[in-house]
């Protein structure tokens, strides 16, 4: 199992990516972990593809076509959960750190 500290680190990375690439650190309020990217107007059709590329490159996992669904990719918590599911526990702990 990942420790709480490591889990938070995955989420921080996702949050940083979202802030730099979707929010741009502008006037948008800080996102809650469970807040919908779609609902907040942060993401459009191509934005999802950017997010998939980020996940694959950063965490060394492959996201299957049938995993590209809002349940997995529409919030910081959702993305982090997807990453955790796809990484072996020890690998996940190493990469997340």
């Amino acid at each position, binding site marked *: 199992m990942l420790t709480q500290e490591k889990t938070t680190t995955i989420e921080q990375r996702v949050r940083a990516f979202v802030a*730099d*690439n979707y*929010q*741009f*650190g*502008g*006037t*948008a309020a800080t996102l809650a972990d469970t807040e919908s990217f*779609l609902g907040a*107007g*942060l*993401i*459009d*059709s*191509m*934005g*999802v*593809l*950017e997010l998939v590329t980020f996940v694959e490159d950063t965490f060394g996992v492959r996201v299957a*076509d*049938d995993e*590209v*669904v*809002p*349940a997995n990719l*529409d919030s910081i918590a959702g993305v982090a959960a997807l990453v955790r599911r796809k990484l072996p526990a020890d690998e996940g702990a190493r990469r997340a750190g």
Partner: protein
Amino acid sequence: MCGIAGFHGTPDWDADHRAVLAGMVAAVRHRGPDEQGCFLAPGVGLGHARLSILDLAGGRQPMADEAGDHCVTFNGEIFNYLELQRDLRARGRRVRTGSDTEVILHAYAEYGVRCVEEFNGDFAFALWDKARDRLFIARDRMGVRPVYYTRVGGVLVFASEVKALLRVPGVRAELDPVALDQCFTFWFPLAPRTPYQGISELPPGHYLVSEGGQVTVRPYWQLRFPDAAEHRAGPRADGRAVAEELHDLLVDATRIRLRADVPVGAYLSGGFDSSAVAALVKTFTDRRLCTFSVGFESPEFDETAQQQEVVRSLGTEHASVVCTAASIGAAFPDVIRHAERPVLRTAPAPLFRLSRLVRDSGFKVVLTGEGADEVFGGYDIFKEAKVRRFWARCPNSTSRPRLLRRLYPYLPGIQGQSQAYLEAFFRTGLTNPHDPFFSHRPRWQSTAATKAFFSADLAASLKGYDAVEDLRGQLPADFGRWHPLCRAQYLEACHLLPGYILSSQGDRVGMAHAVEGRFPFLDHRVVEFAARIPPRLRLKGMTEKHILRESVGRYLPPAIARRPKQPYRAPDSQSFFGPAAPEYVAELLGPAAVARGGYFDPAAVAKLVKKCRAGAAVSLRDNMALVGILSVQLLDHLFVRGAAGLAPAA
């Protein structure tokens, strides 16, 4: 086609009135490089920059009648002027010239302000009635030709373009936060609002009367559709008879738009609409026809193969200009100087280059297919709304949202998307099919995401403002009773068309090189006829513009006649970065310039620029934001801060 300018009232300017008026005319000289003229009388000044198209010798302006009772400055064309001349002569009026300008004078003398109802044309004019000391300004029904106005010191000043108003002492350009909000939601400000505080646009189909120190603005024409119940209850229209009636109307709309004492060319995009117009010219006249096209270096946007197919089929003489991303970036500041409003796409830039090709080829007038999508239901947003509405009737259906796959076949971002995400994107507003804006919610929501780049100050000044609610307040009273397709068409035809398509992408980029566009599909007889056609004949199943294809598709090569809508697009953020990046981009998007403007958050813009520079800005939102921000920065630089000779008068 021309530029107009003037004032009504007694100015207290220190400067010589004639010099101010001449300065205003000079600011719109690009619209009419052939001749310039001014008329001054106590309390009134009319100026004109002329592009000579009809009665080259006798059409000088401003034009007064024989008695000197009325004087007019006129931008545009009255296409039915020959018929009106005949009618006016029959009423005993002595028509001296072969110009349509004189027809306006006689028609006003005969009918007063209701004269506009007689005109079939694209026009903006100002007419001074000496006896009443009244200035009468009118604009065409669909908003092809622009006219702006403001009041300063009790004096009404008007012009074809805002830059002419800025030549008047006391008129300054300040960007209006509400207009920015609207532009970053709809792509345009809601007329009469303009991007500039205190400066108004006369809305399409309206006239203005300045008399006795009072200014009143009234509509004389508005697009209306029958109630949906009338379509259902009325006799079942015979599609073939409708197509034939439409055919004859389109032939006539095209015929009267060929009236000119100079050669008339045509644009060819490679799509159905412009091809149909060119085919009507070739089929029903014995004119030699020259056609003009834009091509793109990038195959994603290029339609050269389709254009060539039409050229071969119709036997036109053809010329084209190939646009690269770098050429768009280089032209963009000029485009914004002419457009005078924010744009969120670069699409006007290739058309700016195209009008230069037309002008360099010796043409002043081109026919185009503009307006067919709005009038006959051609845009994908109409299909999108139809699919979403069908889905909304059974929101838990798994089969209905699969139709979303048939939308936007030319957008790889949409096509590459999973079904779950497609549904998530298009689910916006699905639970409220009675919403008057059901058709446009996803688009506006997606565009409005660009407002995240607004500075804290700008966002604070807009707190509580909702552009969509503002638009709701402008809807016609019977809007809610129209068929859903009619509602969506109204929003496109009465807002996007004049606010963006005919202005930033039409009049402005054409007139930048003194090229006049003429649009047979926007003949008001065609527009009114189409509004009465049952919606099922416009969007038949998922075939857009069905009745138009039935009507004039016979004149086109089969592949073009059947070709689905391919929207005109151009490279966006990639036009401003890379090895040939224009210098002004780094300058205007740098943190200091962004902070100085005060419209956007400098740190957010810096991150967006970094992303674009890396070639990673692939989403629609990022592209719209980058182009929109750059265009506002250019407006601030050119108009507010007054670079490039556009300084507000001191």
